[in-house]
């Protein structure tokens, strides 16, 4: 391009304007001066100072453009905007070129324009939605074959000239098309980068360099966008999961007291997500009864990096109370700073339904006890009548001894002593009854199951005698105490014993023998109740523990189901150990550390104390 100028004079230093391969737009003023000496250099070796200036300007503009693009990408600008800016930058840099970026959908099937700011809408619309496999236009082919495709002259290219694409291109005045696949770091084809010109021809090396740089930039932008889409999707999933499960997450950087909450945590605490979280803000929600305890908990957490698990209550501005379950894991970041990462769950509803369930369960247990009581009424009346008979007779005898002509004081004293003894007996019966049937709350204590068995047998001895049942006990003497509710466990025993008695009711021609055994079972205790009754019909076995299922004409069908629920609330199991024609054996086993929290029924418990103990327990473990 310089040759005609240069060949006119031997020595010259003319100013001239260069029409560079990549001109900046509206570049009118001279860019520099060219000097040469033919004698010194010859026509083919022209040192052109101005080339340096031009190239530097061009490079600088390009770098600035690229930097702008990278900024857009890194600030998470929408992909469409980034790609449009990319196209415009390319078109600015390479004069006469029209640029477009086509995207392939994630499955690699169809094409869609990401940006084509200077292409006619007709061309864009004609390509959008085409499948890669259709090979409609050079871009589809480039994507399909995963290699650059240069069409220097569309109108003369045998592959395209008769096609629809060529007609559209011609209508838009496009003569040449160079399209290059955009490839991701892992080799997947993300799309195509296309340059069109209104003149025929192929890309120069400078064009190729631009193509290389911008396909790379485009791949970064597209991949980043895809990653962000995945991230946004996963965040949306997480957010939705947190919302659905009522679980929020948080982090607490101890040294700086920086607290971060997820959206759901804000929602749980009823705080505007735009607010910065401080302990003051958190403290304003803590239930007044638990403020001190909470502060102590935080103090502990600051000093020892232990995992935390506790429950506490919030008092919301509307006066409602929320029950939260918090779990936090202590971590050390790269700098060695203590940081807690955790989850907080709103368990208000769960606690409420648990409480309701427990209330129902305890009511059912009470009904079961009352039913058992009903069955025992006659026996119990008898139990009380016996000492009462003694009391009345003794008192009368004593009176007679004192009112005769020669009062027998010694005899009267003796009769009075007997009266007192019998009154104590009656009182003991009442006490046992009250313990068994009067109390509705749960009391957990280390329970001696053997003692519980013996006490229960005292209570039912009248009934057993009435039913003609003899009892044999084989109680192990090295049994650990079981953590549990003595009355509830006695209720289980009562239900099983009464069932056994009922089962032996029809057994006329064999001994009616009830055997109660207790043995050590691992670190717990196993108790079995064996009868010599009619056994259990195999057809009934699988439904035996179902609520309201009964084989008795006057049964309610709650004894066994309540018994199993009680045993399970003590982390034990209750099962049928034998059910043959010779009788049935029911057995239950309880671990030594049975119920750790009152399960049936739950009292409205002080969440604070429960929380503290849990947190302490967690510390002890760590």
């Amino acid at each position, binding site marked *: 391009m310089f040759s005609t100028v240069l060949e006119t004079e031997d020595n010259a230093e003319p100013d001239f304007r260069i029409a560079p391969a990549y001109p900046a737009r509206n570049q009118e003023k001279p860019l520099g001066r060219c000097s040469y000496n033919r004698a010194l250099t010859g026509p083919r070796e022209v040192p052109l100072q101005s080339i340096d200036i031009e190239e530097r300007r061009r490079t600088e503009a390009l770098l600035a453009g690229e930097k702008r693009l990278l900024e857009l990408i890194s600030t998470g600008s929408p992909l469409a905007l980034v790609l449009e800016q990319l196209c415009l930058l390319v078109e600015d840099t390479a004069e006469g070129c029209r640029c477009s970026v086509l995207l392939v959908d994630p499955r690699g099937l169809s094409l869609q324009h990401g940006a084509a700011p200077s292409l006619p809408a007709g061309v864009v619309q004609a390509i959008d939605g085409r499948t890669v496999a259709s090979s409609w236009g050079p871009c589809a082919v480039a994507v399909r074959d995963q290699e650059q495709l240069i069409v220097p002259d569309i109108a003369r290219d045998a592959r395209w000239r008769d096609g629809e694409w060529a007609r559209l291109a011609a209508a838009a005045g496009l003569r040449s098309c160079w399209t290059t696949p955009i490839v991701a770091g892992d080799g997947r084809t993300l799309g195509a980068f296309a340059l069109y010109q209104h003149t025929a021809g192929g890309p120069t090396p400078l064009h190729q360099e631009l193509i290389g740089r911008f396909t790379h930039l485009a791949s970064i932008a597209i991949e980043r966008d895809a990653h962000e889409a995945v991230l946004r999707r996963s965040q949306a999933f997480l957010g939705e999961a947190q919302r659905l499960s009522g679980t929020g997450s948080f982090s607490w950087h101890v040294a700086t007291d920086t607290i971060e909450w997820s959206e759901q945590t804000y929602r749980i605490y009823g705080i505007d997500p735009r607010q910065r979280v401080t302990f003051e803000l958190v403290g304003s929600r803590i239930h007044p009864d638990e403020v001190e305890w909470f502060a102590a908990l935080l103090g502990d957490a600051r000093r020892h990096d232990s995992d935390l698990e506790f429950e506490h209550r919030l008092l919301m501005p509307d006066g409602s109370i929320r029950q939260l379950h918090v779990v936090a894991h202590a971590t050390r970041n790269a700098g060695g700073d203590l940081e807690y990462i955790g989850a907080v769950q709103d368990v208000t509803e769960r606690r409420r339904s648990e409480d309701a369930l427990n209330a129902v369960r305890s009511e059912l247990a009470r009904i079961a006890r009352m039913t058992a009581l009903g069955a025992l009424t*006659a026996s119990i*009346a*008898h139990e009380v*009548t*016996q*000492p*009462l*008979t*003694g*009391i*009345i*007779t*003794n008192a*009368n*005898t004593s009176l*007679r*001894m004192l009112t005769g002509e020669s009062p*027998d004081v010694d*005899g009267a004293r*003796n*009769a009075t002593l*007997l009266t007192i*003894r*019998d009154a104590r*007996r009656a009182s003991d019966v009442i006490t046992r009854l009250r313990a068994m049937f009067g109390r509705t709350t749960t009391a957990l204590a280390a329970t001696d199951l053997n003692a519980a068995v013996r006490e229960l047998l005292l209570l039912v001895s009248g009934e057993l*005698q*009435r039913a003609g049942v003899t009892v044999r006990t084989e109680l192990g003497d090295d049994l650990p105490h079981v953590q549990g509710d003595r009355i509830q466990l006695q209720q289980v025993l009562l239900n099983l014993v009464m069932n056994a008695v009922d089962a032996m009711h029809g057994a006329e021609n064999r001994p009616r023998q009830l055997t109660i055994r207790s043995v050590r079972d691992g670190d717990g205790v196993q108790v079995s109740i064996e009868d010599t009754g009619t056994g259990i019909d195999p057809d009934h076995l699988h439904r035996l523990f179902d609520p309201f299922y009964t084989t008795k004409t006057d049964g309610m069908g709650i004894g066994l189901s309540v018994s199993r629920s009680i045993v399970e609330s003590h982390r034990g199991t209750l099962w049928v150990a034998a059910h043959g024609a010779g009788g049935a054996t029911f057995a239950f086993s309880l671990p030594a550390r049975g119920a750790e929290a009152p399960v049936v029924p739950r009292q409205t418990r002080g969440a604070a104390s429960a929380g503290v103990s849990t947190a302490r327990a967690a510390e002890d473990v760590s």
Partner: protein
Amino acid sequence: MSQPGIVYVVDDDVSVRESLELLVRWAGWQPRTFASARPFLNQPVERVPCCLILDVGLPDLNGLDVQQRLMARPDLPVIFITGQADVPMTVRAMKAGAAEFLTKPFDDEVLLTAVRRALESSDMVQRETAELETLRDRYASLTRREREVMNLIVAGLLNKQVGVELGTSEVTVKAHRGRVMQKMRAASFADLVRISSRLDPVSAKR
């Protein structure tokens, strides 16, 4: 009653047993207490007015079963005491001849009265039994001919008719008759007829 009556108490409940023991002793009788039926049933029979206070619900035998086994002891009236009485049980006991059926806790005066009556009844039965045994002994001391004469004269036959019946003389019949009256210690002929009917209540009605 020469000796104080014996009151047997069979009840498995210690309060009932011991309170009755005191009451019975205070009333001047001899209490004998048992916690179950079998040891009581194995007791030797004593010829003293006695009665039984029996609990219906016993660990080994049912009180009504015990009553059945005592059918051969009309001199041992049974007073039932029970903590849980039902009508069929009461009816069964009374039909089987129970002296009384009391529900615990009972009025001690009622019980004392029942015991007193039972002991009187027992005394009477024992006396009658003793008398009858004496009469039987006397009857057993008669010769075969004397028994034949006695049976015929108490049936209302004259001496002459008896002689015809036995193929002997009237004089001989008279002699037998005198010995019968003497051996049977009958004060008069009417007395002999009464003794005879006690010895054989069935033929007496004929």
